[in-house]
């Protein structure tokens, strides 16, 4: 892949999309839309993190809110109590989450399929109860609020655009890691594990180690997302941070978009998050839960009719679109009669 890659439609279409994506916040002056943009990227990023273990590894976790919560609480407590910058706090939180993932994951990975999912729910609920009842540390249900003192070192900004680029950078970083994993030996181990765990073991994949590593990477990024949440909303409480709904939403964007694909969570979030936010904004007060009704209905339809996710349906159309676009590598066209002749 050289600079010539960007002359082909396969190269320049994603590039243009990326540039458009990165600059689109400038076009969105309205804080309401900016907020939706931020949340869309936020769920895309955390969905991608979930996707590493849940999608590629096929280990369905409905307890990822736990890592999210650990990240948010660690950085916030360190910042509020000790004045430590969230830039450091977020990595300490992420390391803590990674450690917890290793300790909890090791025994849990003896379970398979729905039983693993059950154990992750139990894990998430235990942390929820801890956060709720350890009042001296977490202030319980009241939650902890962060004073708004905008400064780079406090990871607090007046301009919403700063948050946009912070989370966008985060998404690109996770995406890079995911693509790296996808092309690595480790990625193939994960796929083998998902397709048939016993077969993977037989051919010599240390499945426990692979699962554990995937969970730890996933927990690390989920936890970083927790810090972002705290810095953006300035209030953390156990009901949101450790909720099953939150864990489910991370899984949901991946499932709808396409599990075990790099772009799946992004497509899922692009579809679901703005939809959910609009519904909440227009119908929110009167009709609670409406966006969940629609999410769940979409999920049931996707599971029934396109279990591979929306990305599967889009692939062909995308390829067709690419075939219509011009190729700018004039001197080396594969389809030219000359090259046919040379053969």
């Amino acid at each position, binding site marked *: 892949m050289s600079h010539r890659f960007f002359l082909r439609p396969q190269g320049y279409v994603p590039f243009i999309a990326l540039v458009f994506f990165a600059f689109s916040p400038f076009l969105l002056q309205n804080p309401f839309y900016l907020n939706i943009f931020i949340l869309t990227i936020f769920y895309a990023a955390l969905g991608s993190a979930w996707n590493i273990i849940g999608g590629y590894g096929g280990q369905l976790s409905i307890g990822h809110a736990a890592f999210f919560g650990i990240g948010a609480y660690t950085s916030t407590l360190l910042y509020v109590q000790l004045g430590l910058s969230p830039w450091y706090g977020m990595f300490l939180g992420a390391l803590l989450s990674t450690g917890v993932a290793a300790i909890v994951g090791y*025994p849990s990975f003896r379970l398979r399929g729905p*039983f693993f*999912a059950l*154990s992750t729910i139990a894990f998430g609920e235990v942390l929820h109860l801890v956060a709720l009842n350890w009042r001296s540390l977490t202030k319980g249900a009241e939650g902890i609020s962060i004073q708004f003192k905008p400064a780079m070192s406090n990871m607090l900004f007046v301009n919403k655009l700063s948050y946009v680029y912070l989370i966008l950078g985060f998404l690109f970083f996770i995406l890079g890691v995911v693509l790296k994993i996808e092309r690595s030996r480790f990625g193939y181990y994960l796929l083998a594990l998902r397709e048939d765990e016993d077969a993977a073991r037989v051919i010599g994949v240390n499945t426990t180690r692979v699962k554990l590593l995937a969970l730890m990477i996933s927990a690390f990024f989920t936890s970083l997302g927790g810090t972002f949440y705290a810095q953006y909303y300035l209030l953390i409480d156990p009901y949101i941070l450790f909720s099953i709904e939150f864990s489910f939403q991370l899984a949901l964007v991946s499932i709808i978009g396409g599990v075990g694909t790099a772009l799946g969570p992004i497509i899922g979030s692009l579809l679901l998050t703005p939809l959910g936010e609009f519904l909440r904004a227009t119908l929110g007060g009167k009709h609670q*839960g409406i966006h969940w009704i629609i999410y769940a209905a979409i999920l*049931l339809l996707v*599971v029934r009719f396109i279990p591979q996710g929306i990305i599967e349906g889009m692939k062909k159309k995308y390829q067709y679109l690419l075939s219509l676009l011009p190729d700018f590598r004039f001197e080396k066209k594969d389809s030219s009669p000359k090259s046919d002749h040379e053969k």
Partner: protein
Amino acid sequence: MAMEAIIQVIIGGLLIGGVYALISLGITLIWGVVGIVNFAHGEFLMLGMYASYWLFHLMGIDPYLSILIVTPLFFLFGVLIQRAIFQPILDAPHLTHVFASFGLAILLQNLALFFWSPDVRSIKTTYSSLSLRAGDFMISFPRLVAFVAAVGIMLGIHYFLKNTYTGRAIRATSQDPSAALLMGINTKRIFLLAFGIASACVGIAGALLIPFYYVFPSVGAYFVLTAFVIVVLGGMGSMTGAFFGGLIIGVIEAMSGYFISIAFKEGIYYIIFWFILIYKPTGLFGRARLS
């Protein structure tokens, strides 16, 4: 420590444990026969509670009498869910089943929230706060009824599974669906039947709970987690396990609520749950069908 207080706590735990067992029975039946972990089971219970609530509230039908309506209604509901949602994806991987049942749970919970608001509702019957005195102990009447009815239904289902042709067909399907199919059992119909029975049981549990428990859209989430603890403790797919698991968890919950703190009682059985899942995943009475 007063001995009487402890016995009183144990009685309370056993009584509610009976209802837990009835709820868990459905989960274990669906898993054992259809091979699906029904995460939406708590929402079925929630609907059962609302059904009895509305029948009482709008038509003045006594909750115990409403069982006559709730049972066939929920049987049909279960059959419909299995037919429309799970039957088409039975051959898909477990992951898909989990997504579907979790999606169903979220859907039902939020439909309830949408139509009936998050208000906590309860009904006042003449016997809601009635207590019977047995020696030194007080026994709440609606809880006693719930316990007796739950145990009765479980015994009835046990008899049905052991001694009738259809019951044997259900057990055969549970042991080996392909072999059962080869023996001429219409396994698809058995799946529908199992789902229907499980749904009817949890609907009845809802009707039994409503005289002394309040209902709100997410009430199922609380009960279903308890039920999963029970099912895992008793052994996935085991009826006997669900029964004794229910009683054990009922007592543990009551004891930890009394001796430690209400806030931590859930924490305690999550920890139990976790340890059983990991160190004895077949539970107390389970067969190993854990792949």
